[in-house]
């Protein structure tokens, strides 16, 4: 086939075009193929063809996710990433249902209002990303907290009423028993993006995501493109909000939470690669359909319940691995997300041998380099300010020793995890599997120690070993297979969730060993042992991340992986090493949390993923990699914990606490912004 193409001069331009088109749209073709295969397999297992009812309900169930995924893919194409997707969907449906549905407005106006609020929220994200120049992950994390809080303020529990006309508009069959309403919604949404794509605005979004520097030189308004991607994405989230409200007949403040992971998975299943510049909204729609259709397959197979998360993760991995072979990772992807390090690892790091000693005794200058101080100090100052506020606010009830002890103890778990997340982030990566790793390690550790101190002798090494294996799996997927860190760690996280369920059989068993329990809950004078031991850990972390060859290579890789490779750094092994450290830290945190709670639980790590990112950023680390100091991160952990402690004791409604947390994170990163950079 290939030779024929080469040899035949008479090949028609149309067929070349067709082949190029296919190659360019491989992700899309695959996602459609995947969906069709899934429907086929389900039909075979069930022994019956899908009915109109079945297909139309499937599409209706998938439409909210599909609309959110279209929005997410626009933002990903523009080179960003949006963690606030679920929060914006929840916010728009709450605004529409609480303030507008009872005004008797026509359905289209209601939809437009929801879309408008989505675009407004997107515009805020876009402003901070494109104009202020902050990292998308941190900006959208902060807006996520803030919007969740606002949603809870206006809608403390499910309620409101959606007019029947809106439901009819969005959900009723366009042609009875031939075209379901949701199909029309999706087609209209895709057409809207299809039109925008062809305009100069669309070009600037694609350009912003591919090579923003060259695009800028070519006269394309890159900043506008980035901003527009968030506004347009927000508009689609608003549509998702209107749709889900119509589907429910009311608004539910918690409706958006599961959309974050699902929308990212749908986007990646749809063949849109993280990193920007390429992607298709149609693919995302089919990605969403695939995710929802998997429910049917699992039911048809009678699959054990714990398989769901793992199976989805495997499908995601499969889709991305097949997909990856078509696309060559661009330089921008490497820079932004540390992708495709396969080639980079091939060079032997001979250059760095003998240049610097692997380790030397650190001086203060090594421990806290002058250049880093301005990024380290703010978090500590923030922590002190919060402590003083707490002391003033609580007056007589405030006991300084107890406060310090609790602050250190509650911060300790996060501090351990942040060393791992921080290392990975400094290398230009990201570890989304942390929560699931902590849980699995806790479950395994509790089972092995089973209330016995002697069992710690093997429970601790085995648990930490599990952590190392998890890290190795992440590292290999990123550095050898060449997957984007977000995809790899998201998939590994899903598989670990299934493993935790499988290992524990649904309820984790075994108590924490008394020694471990004492370490985290006991008393040495006024202090908890862990509150003191954490200082040893911090010292170790600072030395590791500031005074070793590893640290210097880490910084060089984070700044520019290719240049580091040229200088003889084995980028591949270093990247794997970062994930292994993260896995090890997750293992340790899993053990400590098991000690803290007395036993393991399947939600052991759930509350720790986003705080690790927030603490890393508040601690002055550059989320794109290359800059960071563990003392700063530890300060970030303490500041965050101090803020949580302060808020937890105030009479502020919970919603306001979320808003405060979001604003604090945003303020911190605005303050820490390095104006010299980009």
């Amino acid at each position, binding site marked *: 086939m290939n030779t024929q193409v080469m040899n035949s001069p008479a090949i028609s331009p149309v067929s070349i075009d067709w082949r190029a088109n296919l190659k360019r749209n491989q992700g899309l073709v695959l996602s459609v193929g995947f969906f069709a295969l899934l429907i086929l397999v389900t039909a075979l297992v069930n022994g019956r063809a899908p009915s109109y*009812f079945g297909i139309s309900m499937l599409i209706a169930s998938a439409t909210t996710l599909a609309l959110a995924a279209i929005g997410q893919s626009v933002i990903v194409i523009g080179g960003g990433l949006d963690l606030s997707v679920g929060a914006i969907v929840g916010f728009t449906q709450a605004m529409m249902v609480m303030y507008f549905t009872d005004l008797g407005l026509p359905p289209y106006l209601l939809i437009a209002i929801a879309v408008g609020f989505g675009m407004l929220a997107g515009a805020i994200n876009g402003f901070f990303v494109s104009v202020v120049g902050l990292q998308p992950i941190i900006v959208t994390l902060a807006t996520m907290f803030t919007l969740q809080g606002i949603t*809870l303020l206006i809608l403390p529990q499910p309620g409101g009423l959606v007019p029947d006309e809106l439901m009819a508009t969005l959900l009723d069959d366009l042609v009875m028993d031939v075209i379901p309403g949701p199909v029309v919604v999706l087609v209209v949404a895709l057409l809207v993006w299809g039109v925008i794509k062809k305009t100069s605005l669309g070009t600037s979004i694609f350009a912003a995501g591919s090579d923003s520097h060259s695009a800028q030189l070519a006269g394309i308004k890159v900043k506008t493109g980035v901003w527009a991607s968030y506004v347009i994405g927000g508009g689609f989230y608003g549509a998702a909000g209107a749709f889900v409200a119509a589907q429910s007949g009311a608004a539910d403040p918690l409706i958006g939470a599961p959309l974050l992971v699902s929308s990212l998975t749908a986007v990646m299943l749809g063949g849109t690669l993280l990193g920007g510049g390429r992607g298709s909204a149609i693919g995302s729609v089919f990605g969403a359909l695939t*995710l929802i259709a998997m429910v049917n397959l699992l*039911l*048809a197979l009678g699959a054990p319940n714990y398989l769901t998360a793992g199976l989805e993760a495997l499908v995601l991995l499969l889709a991305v691995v097949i997909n990856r072979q078509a696309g060559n990772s661009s330089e921008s992807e490497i820079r932004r997300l540390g992708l495709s390090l396969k080639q980079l690892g091939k060079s032997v790091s001979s250059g760095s041998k003998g240049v610097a000693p692997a380790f030397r005794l650190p001086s203060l200058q090594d421990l806290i380099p002058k250049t880093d101080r301005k990024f380290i100090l703010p978090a500590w100052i923030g922590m002190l300010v919060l402590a003083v506020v707490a002391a003033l606010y609580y007056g007589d009830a405030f006991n300084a020793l107890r406060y310090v002890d609790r602050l250190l103890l509650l911060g300790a778990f996060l501090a351990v995890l942040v060393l791992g997340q921080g290392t990975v982030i400094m290398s230009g990566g990201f570890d989304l599997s942390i929560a699931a790793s902590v849980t699995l390690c806790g479950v395994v550790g509790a089972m092995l120690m089973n209330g016995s101190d002697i069992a710690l002798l093997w429970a601790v090494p085995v648990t930490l070993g599990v952590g190392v294996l998890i890290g190795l799996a992440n590292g290999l997927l990123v550095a050898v297979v060449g997957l984007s860190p977000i995809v790899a760690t998201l998939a590994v996280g899903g598989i670990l969730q299934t493993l935790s*369920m499988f290992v524990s059989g649904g309820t984790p068993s075994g108590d924490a060993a008394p020694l471990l329990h004492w370490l985290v809950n006991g008393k040495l004078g006024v202090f908890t042992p862990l509150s003191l031991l954490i200082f040893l850990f911090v010292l170790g972390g600072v030395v590791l991340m500031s005074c070793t060859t590893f640290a210097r290579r880490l910084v060089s890789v984070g700044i520019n992986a290719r240049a580091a490779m040229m200088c003889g750094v084995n980028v591949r092994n270093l990247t794997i090493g970062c994930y292994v450290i993260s896995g090890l830290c997750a293992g340790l945190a899993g053990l400590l949390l098991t000690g803290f709670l007395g036993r393991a639980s399947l939600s052991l790590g759930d509350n720790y993923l986003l705080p690790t990112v927030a603490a890393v950023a508040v601690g002055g680390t550059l989320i794109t990699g290359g800059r960071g100091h563990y003392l700063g991160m530890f300060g970030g952990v303490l500041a965050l914990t101090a803020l949580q402690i302060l808020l937890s*004791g105030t009479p502020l409604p*919970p919603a306001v606490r979320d808003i405060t947390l979001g604003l604090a994170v945003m303020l911190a990163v605005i303050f820490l912004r390095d104006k010299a950079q980009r």
Partner: protein
Amino acid sequence: MKQLFTRTTSTLPPLRRLLTPFVMGAALMGATLNTQAAEDKLNVYVSFGFYGNTWMEQNRNMMEALAASKDYKDKINLKVQVVGNGDPQRQSQQINAMTEAGADVIVLYPVSPTALNRAIKNACRRGVTVMTWDSTVTESCATNVHADNKLQAEHQAQWIADKLEGKGNILMINGLNGAAASDDRVKAAKALWSKYPGLKVVGEVEGKWSDPVVREEVSKFMAVRSWNDIDMVFAQLGCYPVYALQDEAGIADADKVPCAGSAENAERLALLPADTKVDGASGSYRPMGIDGYTFEVGPAMGAQALKYGVDAKLAGKKLDHDIVMPAKVVTADNAKLCTTADFADLSSGCNTFSPALAPNPETSTAVYSEELPQLNLNASLTGTPEY
């Protein structure tokens, strides 16, 4: 010309691809009549919106035990599914798929009171009996088997007001912010306390109905408070961590701040006199002689919803939209240790288990229903019926 061609390829095929499956589906619809109607056992599907804690595990075990019991094993075919990620879209689709697969009864733990309505309505239209337990849905064709959260919280709040004689500081451990069950209880309790100017809510933490979360959030709260500043804890769940934290703070049982909450075995055990001999008691999982309060909601409720649904389907009856179950209250006055925890033992009024019978302190004690003689504590732990 070429330009035109590429344009059409990039917009038309996706449309066609979108349309093909259901055009095909519509054509085949006539051939897909329900093939499973001939089977004589009822197809019963259970959809768990959440999974992964002891309470849910016990619910599932009790349902499976009921389905395996002599009374039901020839009548029903039980299939249990879990929704990944607590996602309403996926649960909607699960309901659709169950309906399509020929379900006769669907029993739901709904993730949202509203988001599943359309799928539920469709299931009802096709003759499926739809039941929920504990959490409710607003769709009127479904039957909610649940406790009256508002009434339950008022009773709990009144007990606290009486115990404190209208004066004192209260720490509230709430459920999940944004969930109706949590919000209703918080509002009901606060409304009741507003009649007592001496009662003061000094703090509210979000416990998310999970012991680990409660432990962490209360720890944060206590970093700036002393247990001396609190007179009573009002918990939706999580009295066990409250007692454990006080143990670690070195507070003697006689001085512990009492807690009113739901009925995990550890908090029930804490109500027994401190000198009670109990097999396997250790750490904070032991009798403490605390003058506390516990209310029971589920896990027998899941099996009850299953039973009601199946019985109604078999009898061809239509159930009401709401079946309100009483939330039984146990205080130090009527806490009683079980010996075997089988149905006869439970019927005699025992309500507390030794750690030897229930090794997990989070085990829910609400495993007894006089309507379910097939079930007992063991059924809730292992999924095997009493007979």
